[in-house]
């Protein structure tokens, strides 16, 4: 097969998980996409596939996306067995087709966990994360005048650590990549961002206990420190946040009334 030098299009084989709804067992279906530009993002490549499918009167592949610039946490996908694909510190929407070459076969599956049921094709329901957040991932603040920004002093290093934890976009790649489908990196980040700051202190113990309970309630697995979550996380959330969650939970168990 000759490729047009000017267009530099790639011909790819995609094996995509298709599943009508939560009850359908689903399975991988093979598709060909032709003339894929290396400039395209992975999601644009899926858009091209979907245009082809719709033109042929078939159902488009359902997948999640929103901002397409790595900030919203909506995109997902397990690409060739890697959450958000092969790149480090990047979401699927930030993955570009220049990563691939003509003739490649790419397998695309949904994020898999009991707590993330498949809705359709590659779309999974990640509302378990919302429920964990609702259990304690907040600070209660009285309304009224805004307080003086310099009234509460926070060491620079502490502020940086809290900001690093707060960078979590709730995408769920940590769960998807974890051999145990554990949500400890996500919950660790959410507990840490408040535990580190003075504003988080009043609800510190309540938060750790409630978020742990909500996490287990959703059916996520137990962390065995494989650290695949950290390697997969597009925001480079560190596993030191998991250690902090372990500490916070142990501390809350011991000291809270």
């Amino acid at each position, binding site marked *: 097969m000759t490729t047009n030098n000017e267009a530099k299009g790639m011909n790819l084989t995609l094996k995509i998980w298709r599943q009508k709804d939560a009850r359908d067992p689903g399975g991988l279906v093979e598709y060909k996409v032709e003339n894929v530009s290396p400039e395209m993002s992975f999601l644009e490549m899926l858009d091209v596939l979907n245009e082809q499918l719709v033109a042929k009167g078939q159902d488009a592949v359902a997948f999640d996306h929103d901002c397409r610039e790595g900030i919203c946490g909506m995109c997902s996908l397990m690409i060739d067995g890697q959450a958000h694909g092969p790149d480090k510190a990047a979401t699927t929407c930030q993955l570009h087709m220049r990563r691939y070459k003509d003739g490649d076969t790419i397998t695309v*599956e949904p994020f898999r966990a*009991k707590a993330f049921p498949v809705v359709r094709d590659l779309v999974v329901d990640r509302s378990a994360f919302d429920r964990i957040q609702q259990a304690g991932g907040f600070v209660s603040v009285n309304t009224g005048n805004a307080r003086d920004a310099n009234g509460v002093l926070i060491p620079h290093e502490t502020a940086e650590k809290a900001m690093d934890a707060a960078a979590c976009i709730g995408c769920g790649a940590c769960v998807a990549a974890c051999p145990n489908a554990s949500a400890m990196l996500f919950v660790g980040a959410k507990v840490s961002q408040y535990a580190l700051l003075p504003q988080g202190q009043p609800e510190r113990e309540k938060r750790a206990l409630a978020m742990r309970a909500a996490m287990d309630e959703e059916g996520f*697995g137990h962390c*065995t420190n*494989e650290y695949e979550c950290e390697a997969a996380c597009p925001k480079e959330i560190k596993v*030191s946040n998991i250690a902090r969650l372990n500490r916070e939970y142990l501390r809350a*168990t011991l000291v809270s009334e």
Partner: protein
Amino acid sequence: MPAAEAPAPTAPRCNCRAVEFLESSIGKKIMVALAGLFLCVFLLTHLAGNLILFLGGPAFDRYAQMLESNPLLPLAEGGLVVLFLIHIALAVRARLANMAARPVAYQVYKGKDARTPGSSTMALTGTLVLVFIIIHVATIKFQVGGAKGPDLFGHVTGWFHNPLYAGFYVVALIGVGLHLSHGVQSAFQTLGLNHPRYTPMIKALGAAFAILIALGFLSIPVYFGFIVHAPATPPNGAAMPSGPIGGAQ
């Protein structure tokens, strides 16, 4: 906001904090880690005792007698059994929960190379160690089967004349090394100890501990099984003081 209501909708069996802790994912892991680390301390003392085998029969038998005559031994043995039961029961429960947490497996799973040979085989090496311990305790402590030597030294080294028995020890001890290569540093992380300065040290010391324990124990079946077949009564035995402790010295 009903979502933020304090008591969980599923009625807890008991209002007791300890039960909640032990039923929780994090609590279970903390107990597995604590029991695992105490078992590591046991391994160290057990290794030190066993290396006395290399000093010959009389020295080893004296050590064995000293152990057995210690009135605190049943207490220590009971504690050890409890540690094993905690470690195994909670680790198995965690493992079962983890299998349930991903009911549909990936067709392709590659990950990003964070796993290690030790971390990805914890359940396998743990089971191997369990089978090993059962065989080890049955044959050495309760002396089921094997040539009944006149002394413990003869009994132990006699078992290693069987290449199948010595070979199984070699395989199982490599399993112990693998288990610890992940387990030690993992336990510290589970206990909440992660620090930019100390974690690299903990990882290095954990790996060194795993190697020390594995090679230390391996030296015994390898030496007595495949290098020398020590006679039941070592030739130099007569020359060494062999009375009960508290005797000569």
